[in-house]
């Protein structure tokens, strides 16, 4: 296991969190979107993260390590929020408007965990760099 491989794993974590941030941004921006190209209100997007092991020929230890990858971004299956608002241009015959199944509070929590996870991964990079520097100091004396 090369010290640079640690960077690769952490980079995948950072990429995953960045994509997660994008889904949160999309959900927040469209929290009140009632129209989409497919028709109906916007549906909450959710990233699906998967652990990827890609060292089939590595040592036993290396095979245990996994990168993370966002394999899909799926729509939430929760029903839309129906709000009575007969004056709205997208209201149905009974006066109800279908608003997206996005809960802004949930999105805020997601945003915070995304930010914290990104921070944690960035810290891993910092520590890896520090350990490499310390290892170099052994030889540099």
């Amino acid at each position, binding site marked *: 296991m090369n010290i640079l491989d640690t960077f690769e794993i952490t980079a995948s974590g950072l990429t995953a969190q960045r994509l997660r941030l994008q889904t949160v941004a999309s959900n927040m921006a469209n929290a009140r979107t009632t129209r989409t190209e497919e028709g109906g209100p916007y549906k909450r997007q959710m990233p699906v993260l998967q652990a990827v092991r890609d060292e089939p020929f590595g040592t036993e230890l290396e095979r245990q390590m996994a990168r993370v990858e966002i394999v899909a971004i799926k729509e939430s299956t929760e029903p839309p929020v129906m709000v009575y608002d007969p004056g709205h241009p997208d209201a149905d015959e009974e006066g109800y408007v279908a608003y997206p199944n996005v809960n802004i509070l949930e999105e805020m929590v997601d945003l915070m965990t995304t930010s914290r996870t990104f921070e944690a991964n960035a810290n891993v990079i910092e520590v890896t760099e520090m350990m490499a520097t310390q290892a170099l100091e052994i*030889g*540099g004396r």
Partner: protein
Amino acid sequence: MKVTSIGAPQSPIRNAGGANGPGGTGFSDKLSSAIDRVSDQQLAADDKLAQLASGQDVDLHGTMIALEEADITLRTMVTVRDKVVSAYQEIMNMAI
């Protein structure tokens, strides 16, 4: 306490010398391939930077990590170089 004799040492100088021993590459080969790797890392970091600057779809953190990798490999090479130079000087300053 057991004192081992100073008998004939395993002549490390002869083995580490420039000539390629049977079934192994010499030190200079190893060194040049290591320098190549360092150079590759620098070029990769350069590429990433150029892509980022020209607005292509590259991760900001990916670029920074490439820079960091290049930095670490370069510092490793410099440390090895320092060691080699100091060993060389040690030999050259030896009183004969």
